[in-house]
């Protein structure tokens, strides 16, 4: 079966390889440039972290390329995954393949196996290159938990690629037509990414909440942590952010509310706010910051990859059941 | 070696057509005793019929004693069918041709000649049949 898979996918394989090579060239060229800029910045700033933060890293023409890698899984899923079963059913070549002395299970196992491996390799190679390329930027930025730092680097791109291809295969097996399966890949992949990014990822692990005295220095989480929320909390648990409309919105205790400076030019705002903070502090209010520490980055990557790979496995199982059961 | 023709429209079963063609070939001297008949595969490939049909025809001919199957070699003509030798056919054919010319001169068309022949054959058969009964 392996030779059959190779014969069927060698054209796609060659195209994928060419694109990977082109991407590698761009990544190396741009990555080396960014690295040299970073080195001169490091030399200039002489260990001053504030200075490092301010330095510009110019990525030039290829600025958008890391964003582009977000589309790699969808392209694989739509162009290779969706037609895997559906294309054969549409052209009726499944009648040829399934009437050879190879069970449909083995046929599907060989094709999905190689394709998923290919997807994982593509996703992995791209992710490794982007991770290396983004090294200086990661060192400079405080937050590597956001798009595109988090979802183009590490191991999650592998999970995405495997999932998108599995989704395409399963959708093709269910729909028996390529185009609807492609539509499902787009909607399903983007939808799931959206749901997991916004609603699930913040809760992979219980976030750390640190409280601090409102009158004392503020606390910012160490390193490239992922800030989820910050503000003030009353003894009864009421949360108020530091934003102007919130603070002036009448939720603070009346005695403290009265101390708020009249709105005007921002200059010297901090001094006048100190009275308010002391007042709130006296009434048991505390400042808080909720975040995911930077040290959890790899754990998060692992959890997210695991979720996508498990979902992919479930989808592949569905495809197997359907292909085995369904009348050809 | 001979080649067969099978007419799908004739109403005569294909196996019978083969049997008749072999008999005719032997009778007319196209095939001699000891000659080999085409193999089943050759017949089937040439005239596109079921191999079982050819086998059935050859079996019938074998039962008649006209051919014999030599294991591992093929099917061969064993004897001539009873009946006059080829020369008799030749002679009678000549006299029939003479009769046809005569009939045409008398103004008979082909269809009339055919029906005359058929009626004569039936009448002769009836006569010989009644003779036998008698």
């Amino acid at each position: 079966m392996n030779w059959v898979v190779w014969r069927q996918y060698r054209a796609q394989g060659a195209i994928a390889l060419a694109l990977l090579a082109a991407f590698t060239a761009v990544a190396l060229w741009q990555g080396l440039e960014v690295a040299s800029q970073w080195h001169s910045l490091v030399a200039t700033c002489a260990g001053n972290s504030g200075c490092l933060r301010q330095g510009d890293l110019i990525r030039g023409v290829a600025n958008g390329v890391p964003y582009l890698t977000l589309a790699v899984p969808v392209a694989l899923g739509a162009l290779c995954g969706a037609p895997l079963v559906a294309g054969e059913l549409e052209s009726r070549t499944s009648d040829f393949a399934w009437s050879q002395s190879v069970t449909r299970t083995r046929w599907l196992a060989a094709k999905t196996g190689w394709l998923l491996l290919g997807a994982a390799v593509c996703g992995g190679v791209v992710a490794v290159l982007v991770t290396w390329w983004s090294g200086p930027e990661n060192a400079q930025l405080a937050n590597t938990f956001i798009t595109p730092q988090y979802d183009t680097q590490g191991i999650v791109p592998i999970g995405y690629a495997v999932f998108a291809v599995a989704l395409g295969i399963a959708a093709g097996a269910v729909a028996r037509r390529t185009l609807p399966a492609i539509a499902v890949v787009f909607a399903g992949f983007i939808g799931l990414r959206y749901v997991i990014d916004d609603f699930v990822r913040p809760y992979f692990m219980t976030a750390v909440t640190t409280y601090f005295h409102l009158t004392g220095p503020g606390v910012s989480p160490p390193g490239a942590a992922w800030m989820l929320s910050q503000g003030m909390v009353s003894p009864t648990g009421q949360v108020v952010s530091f934003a102007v409309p919130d603070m002036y919105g009448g939720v603070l205790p009346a005695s403290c509310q009265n101390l708020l400076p009249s709105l005007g030019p921002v200059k010297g705002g901090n001094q006048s706010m100190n009275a308010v903070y002391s007042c709130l502090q006296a009434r048991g209010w505390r400042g808080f910051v909720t975040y995911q520490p930077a040290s959890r980055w790899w754990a998060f990557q692992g959890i997210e990859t695991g979720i996508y790979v498990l979902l992919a496995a479930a989808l592949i199982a569905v495809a197997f059941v359907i292909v085995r059961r369904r009348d050809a | 070696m001979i080649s067969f023709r099978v007419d799908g429209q004739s109403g005569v079963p294909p196996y019978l057509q083969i049997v008749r063609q072999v008999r005719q070939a032997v009778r007319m001297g196209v095939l001699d005793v000891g000659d080999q008949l085409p193999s089943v595969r050759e017949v089937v490939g040439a005239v596109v019929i079921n191999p079982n049909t050819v086998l059935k025809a050859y079996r019938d001919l074998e039962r008649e004693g006209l051919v014999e199957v030599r294991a591992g070699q093929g099917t061969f003509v064993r004897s001539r069918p009873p009946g006059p030798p080829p020369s008799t056919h030749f002679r009678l054919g000549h006299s029939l041709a003479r009769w046809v010319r005569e009939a045409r001169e008398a103004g008979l068309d082909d269809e009339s000649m055919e029906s005359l022949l058929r009626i004569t054959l039936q009448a002769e058969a009836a006569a010989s049949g009644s003779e036998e009964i008698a």
Partner: protein
Amino acid sequence: MSWVAWRQYRSQAVIAAALLAAFAAAILVDGFQIAAHWHAILLACAGNSACLHQEPAPTLVNGLVSDLPYLSLIVPAILGMLWGAPLVAHELETRTSDFAWAQSVTRTRWLAVKAGLLLLAAVVCGGVVSALTTWWSGPGNAQSGGQFSPGQFDIQGIVPVGYAVFAMALGIAAGTVARRTLPAIAVALGGFITLRLLVSDVLRPHYLAAITTYYNLTTGFTPAGSAWVLSQGAVSRTGQFVSAGWGSLGTFLPASCQSLLQGPPSKSGSLSAMFSCMQANGWRGVITYQPADRYRAFQGIEAGIYVLLAAALIAVAIVIVRRRDA
């Protein structure tokens, strides 16, 4: 012919309408919340513009749909792929073109009606999405003035309609040339993304000659309104340019100023001291930008480019369909 095209695409039309409705619902719900929030800020700040832009910025955006408008960056490409690419290619693959082209309708008319319907659908989808997004972004634009900046420019105004029309035309043309759906989809997707990147990164800054202004480093300069700043930095008397990140500043500074760099530059005090030193040594601030009042012109130019390209692609498709043996 119109009925035929409608009959072929009605299920897609229903799906598109459903998706549009869902998008509209999410945007409307979220948009009204943002608007209410914005009104509260306006009231609280009582017309004080410094307050409106105060740090930390008031969070305008509700987390649930904050990313949703950005989906409209990729949706035109998807529509072009899924509807445009199969228009000719799939008919050729299933040989239904033999049926369609054997009716008493010329191929030109057949393609014109089908392509016309799809392009109209693209205009409607793009227009509705863009109108909703523009309205939704109103408070954000008022607060941060970012509608000219890359990313925001691309999802508001009339350019999304241009993108949608172009993507559809690209899909149709790719399908006509490739005669097979899957390669056409790949071409449409790759072509759309490449062209979008190329136009927004390389072409767009040069639609109109940018304005370059020199200014006193100690006083600083901010262009009025929602201008699009292309680059900002400082330039020495000899023409040496350092961008506003100041990362490579050290190597070019006169020795007298360099000592000021030893302190953390993030503290505004030392930075202004350095600016004074630079100013004294003949350095000037320089900014290159597209002024805010060109926003509509840029939208028009970009939309025009895409519509023209779309027209060219449709023309190619028609020529090929007419010429090619079925």
